[in-house]
């Protein structure tokens, strides 16, 4: 893996610092590999494997039963639709904010750039509480007004989408900003001088240039959105068949007694993990094409 990475990256990206390849003469390299593999094994691979093992501890039948429970089906549908909307919002918002950050200088630009990282550093629980304070029907600043207008935010899908969008907000932007900075504006300006409108220039020139970064950001957002727990827990209330997402279902079932509930929890957890891993694998396997261009 290490070899293929260095050899494939070095010729296509000469500008990005030198890739120093240490030849196999050094035992240090093997030690380093061992440490990395052990670290990943104990932190990621082993625990995730155990989830899979626990899921199938009583064979396939209870797993299939779990998948047929209406609560489980509902929770996954809700999770997918919430993740979908959160990703759509973050993609659109992410492109606009990235363009703003890269192409324009304005007062407060650095502050904005720093603000975008807040969701990464603040605990999701805090995010949930903050949203509750603003949008709750009883105590919120504008929640009451929204509720009387017929829009319930807290304990309803809009609140869940907001919380999810909030925590995955920086992912698209952090992928796009470096690529947009690197490609510059020359090509877009060339397109303008050749007769393209700003929108045409963006769609035909800039978008193809950033598509891989954008896709990667979208997949990261999707993975993050599917797995969000803390913020959603606060704003959704977690009522089964109404506002319970897949992660909330995992928690609830895990805490209930009985092997059936435990297996349901593990099944849902495994599926969540598989979707996220699958998305990343697909994108990572597609991504090298970007280098060859």
């Amino acid at each position: 893996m290490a070899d293929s990475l260095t050899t494939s990256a070095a010729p296509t990206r000469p500008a990005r610092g030198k890739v120093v390849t240490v030849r196999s003469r050094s035992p240090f390299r093997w030690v380093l590999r061992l440490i990395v593999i052990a670290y990943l094994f104990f932190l990621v691979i082993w625990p995730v494997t155990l989830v899979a093992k626990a899921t199938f501890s009583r064979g396939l039948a209870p797993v299939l039963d779990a998948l047929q429970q209406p609560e489980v089906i509902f929770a996954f549908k809700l999770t997918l639709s919430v993740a979908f909307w959160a990703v759509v919002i973050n993609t659109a918002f992410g492109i606009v904010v990235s363009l703003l950050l890269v192409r324009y200088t304005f007062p407060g630009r650095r502050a904005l750039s720093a603000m975008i990282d807040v969701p990464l550093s603040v605990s999701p629980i805090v995010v949930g509480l903050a949203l509750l304070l603003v949008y709750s029907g009883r105590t919120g600043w504008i929640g009451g007004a929204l509720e009387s207008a017929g829009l319930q935010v807290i304990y309803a899908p809009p609140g869940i989408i907001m919380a999810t969008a909030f925590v995955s907000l920086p992912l698209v932007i952090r992928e796009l900003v470096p690529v947009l900075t690197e490609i510059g504006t020359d090509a877009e300006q060339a397109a303008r001088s050749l007769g393209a409108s700003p929108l045409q220039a963006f769609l035909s020139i800039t978008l193809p240039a950033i598509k891989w970064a954008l896709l990667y950001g979208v997949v990261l957002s999707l993975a993050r959105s599917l797995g969000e727990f803390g913020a959603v827990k606060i704003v959704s209330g977690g009522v089964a068949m109404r506002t319970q997402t897949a992660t909330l279902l995992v928690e609830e079932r895990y805490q209930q007694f009985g092997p059936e509930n435990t297996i349901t929890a593990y099944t849902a957890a495994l599926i969540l993990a598989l979707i996220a891993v699958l998305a990343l694998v697909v994108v990572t396997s597609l991504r090298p094409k970007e280098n060859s261009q």
Partner: protein
Amino acid sequence: MSIKITGVGKRFGDFVALSDIDLDIPTGQLTALLGPSGGGKSTLLRIIAGLELSDTGTVEIEGTDATDLPAQKRNVGFVFQHYAAFRHMNVAANVGYGLKIRKRPKKEIAAKVQELLALVHLSQFADRLPSQLSGGQRQRMALARALAIEPKVLLLDEPFGALDAKVRKELRAWLRRLHDEVHVTTVFVTHDQEEALEVADQIVVINDGSIEQIGSPDELYDTPASEFVMSFLGPVTLLDGRLVRPHDIEVVAVPFPDSYAGRIVQSSRVGFEVRLEVALVDAPDAAPVLITLTRAEATAKRLEEGAQVWIKPVEGASQIAVPSGATISEVVPVSGLAG
């Protein structure tokens, strides 16, 4: 007049990039905007293209007021220093982009692309991506792309600036020939006086946001309007309060009328050229006078280091008087000495 610029000014914050520029660019000619970096020439070109908006003044292209027209409606071909290739499109798609935007029939686009690729000698590269081309090839592709829309004017922003010296010279000669073929009004920005002198029909020297002089290459070289123009277009040296070109000074080993006595303090050879530094007897503290002559002449006259010589500007040499007591570094910008 193809392009008429009236009273154009542009500021970036406190920095005055252009102040009150009036300029007429004739149809069908190759005009160079020449000047040092940061002098405002690229800004002027971008204002003509509509990629930058001027604060004051108007721009007229082929008789229509283009001042408030966005870049996409000006029908101006623009070539960037760093090619601005569309990286995800092959060469043919790059060249055909402007026509595709104009929704021309596919057949027409294909024919036009082929014709242009032949013009820029890239026919066999039509299916390659820009990253598979050399810098010179990419720039020719960019030129074909700009020409595809049959622009009223072609604008080139330091088109050869990113290329190495040899390719740059080749492309320069090629651009001149190309222009003789297609005759589109062309304006190019350069800080390389040799490039401007070799390629352009007309040169506009721009410095510090204003025009210093406009004229044909010969006019500018022979009758420079200012110390700046003279020193920017070629090497200069200071002889008795006047700027003179180093190759316009006669050197003889015996005294002759109206000449200045001096001693060769240094002699160095670069290829066919010999560069002498002569310290004048009357002004031993001043910077030595720089003289260039051919190797053959220097050998024939036995001009060696330490030799006593008499020097004088030749008949008809271009000269500009400078304020008395000024030293060469005070009147000549550093970039002029390098050329």
